[in-house]
């Protein structure tokens, strides 16, 4: 009986979270809709061009349905959203969904590569720091990491450009090669942008992993492994790393959710055609439906990642489950 009661609570808890998630996304799109409509000037002027007369503008607005009330427009947007239709760009006529789907992979690829690079930096650093915690190496890496967190991402991007493309001339500063033109060429255009994110992100991962590793290394079974005479690398990699990696992986997930909206700086700097650039361009052009679509996707991504991490904890840690059931 207790098991079903517990499961029942869990399902209610998850269901409530899901509902809240939906409400947050709905609220975000509603606010976006309101804001974009508050922007002075609209897309009709952009389409009509400089020679358009007042009648032309009115005709364009009628054709696009822009003359209806804001609420009616939002309602029809929501209605079509349910059918998976995000509308078409006012400017190019391209379906919004298609535009987003063509840009999203670029941003996702950037995020995945940057997180992998960050992991490649954080893993050895954390292992060394935790194993020799309190030593000179540990203090050097930890202090260096602290200082690195004070470098803004755009400055880091600039520094990587300065070092790798101006001074060393290894890679071009900007430019994007699509995957179709070859995997290697495609990866090359991601190296610098991903590196400029990773060179800051690794610190976040390293700090979390380091402190978890230090806790794990104090466990009895590690002492046992040491007593058995296992070499340090075996203890660290095979015994200590896995139980210590959970928090770090969580942080990685959260970072991806956060970066989805913030990749715009790196994308702009390196001329990558990703989501961030699409959004900024759309805002400048008052391409309402495109803005709506982008904000929808970004906020869904952000909220989903956050809730997924939350739920993962709920599933894995019964204490949180009980608190959640008793509390909110």
């Amino acid at each position, binding site marked *: 009986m207790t098991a079903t009661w517990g499961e029942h609570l869990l399902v209610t808890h998850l269901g409530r979270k899901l509902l*809240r998630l939906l*409400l*947050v*996304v709905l*609220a*975000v799109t509603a*606010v*976006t809709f309101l*804001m*974009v409509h*508050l*922007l*002075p000037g609209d897309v009709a002027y952009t389409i009509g061009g400089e020679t358009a007369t007042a009648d032309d503008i009115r005709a364009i607005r009628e054709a696009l349905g822009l003359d209806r009330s804001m609420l009616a427009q939002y309602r029809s947007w929501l209605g079509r959203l349910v059918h998976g239709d995000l509308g078409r760009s006012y400017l190019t006529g391209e379906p919004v969904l298609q535009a987003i789907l063509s840009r999203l992979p670029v941003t996702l690829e950037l995020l995945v590569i940057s997180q992998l690079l960050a992991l490649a930096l954080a893993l050895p650093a954390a292992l060394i720091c935790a194993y020799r915690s309190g030593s000179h190496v540990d203090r050097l890496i930890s202090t260096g990491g*602290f*200082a690195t*967190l*004070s*470098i*803004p*991402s*755009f*400055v880091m991007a*600039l*520094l990587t*450009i*300065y070092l790798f493309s*101006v001074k060393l001339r290894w890679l071009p500063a900007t430019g994007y090669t699509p995957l179709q033109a070859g995997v290697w060429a495609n990866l090359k255009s991601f190296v610098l942008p991903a590196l400029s994110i990773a060179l800051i992100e690794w610190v976040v991962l390293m700090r979390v992993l380091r402190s978890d590793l230090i806790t794990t290394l104090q466990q009895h079974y590690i002492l046992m492994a040491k007593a058995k005479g296992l070499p340090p690398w075996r203890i660290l990699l095979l015994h200590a790393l896995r139980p210590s990696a959970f928090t770090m992986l969580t942080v990685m997930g959260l970072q991806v959710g956060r970066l989805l*909206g913030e990749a*715009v*700086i790196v994308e*702009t700097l390196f001329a990558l055609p990703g989501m961030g650039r699409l*959004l*900024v361009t759309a*805002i*400048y052009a008052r391409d309402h439906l495109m*803005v709506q679509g982008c*904000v929808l996707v*970004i*906020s869904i991504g*952000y*909220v989903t990642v956050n809730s997924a991490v939350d739920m993962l904890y709920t599933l894995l840690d019964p204490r949180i489950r009980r608190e959640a059931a008793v509390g*909110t």
Partner: protein
Amino acid sequence: MEPNRPTRLPAAGIHEIAARLGPIFWLAVIWLAMVLFAAVTAGYWPVPPPDRMDWAQLGAAPGAPLTPAGTPSAENPQAGGAAHWLGTDTMGRDMVARLIFGARVSLAVSICSPAIGFLVGGLLGCLAGYYRGRLDAGIVATMDVILAFPGLVLLLVIRFYLGASLTNLILILGFLTIPAFSRVARAKTLGLTELEFVQAARLTGAGHLSILVREILPNVVIPLAVYALLVAAFMIMAEGALSFLGLGVPPPTASWGGMIAEGREALDTAPHVSLIPAGVMFLTVLALNLIGDGLRSLLEGRAHP
């Protein structure tokens, strides 16, 4: 970090506290004081005005002499200083002058924006944590919406609607810091309401307002103020990033982010145009982080003896 203990500054002597914070902390304080001094006295420095273009010295290296083209009067070429101590930017403007005037923008943003978040977010967080229930749920949900909303969209809309100005920038950045402050304040308050001294106050018949003002607030304000230092560091970076995207303070007002952006095209010929303001921004952010971190561990050191 343990939220459910009251945090007060240690009752140790001034000298002991100063020693415990370490020399790096005081170096950071000195750097910040210097930046503040430069920002306040920006108008009185022996340097050319920040928007005077010296056409003969575009992107000149540090130490380049002033030329008549960039001085107020041809008769007195020494007016406004002896040289471009840190060189000129790509438009021939004096780097020192732009750095010290840019400090005004960075400091204004890093002081005023967290202040907004501190007041509004702190208050909302305290209320949510103290009253719980529906009020709490409502405030938390609102904060979630703000967090999930792309800040850049908000910024662009306000910019187009109210115009680009330092005040608007401060207001928007301040608004966006509200959720973070409210979370910290709420967590602190939630822990505090369980503690004996709050319960004791309640038992003696103190009203909600009195408990909030006398018992909760004093214990939330100090950790929240320390948190504000870290947010201030982040605000400098945010202002820089926005100026870098061309969404910050409108030109020709000097700002560090804007300076870094202007030098981006000349990285190969005149790297100092970008790298010097980048270095200054880095040191300032680092100083704020060091001070915030030092004070935080001082508070926590007290919490777990």
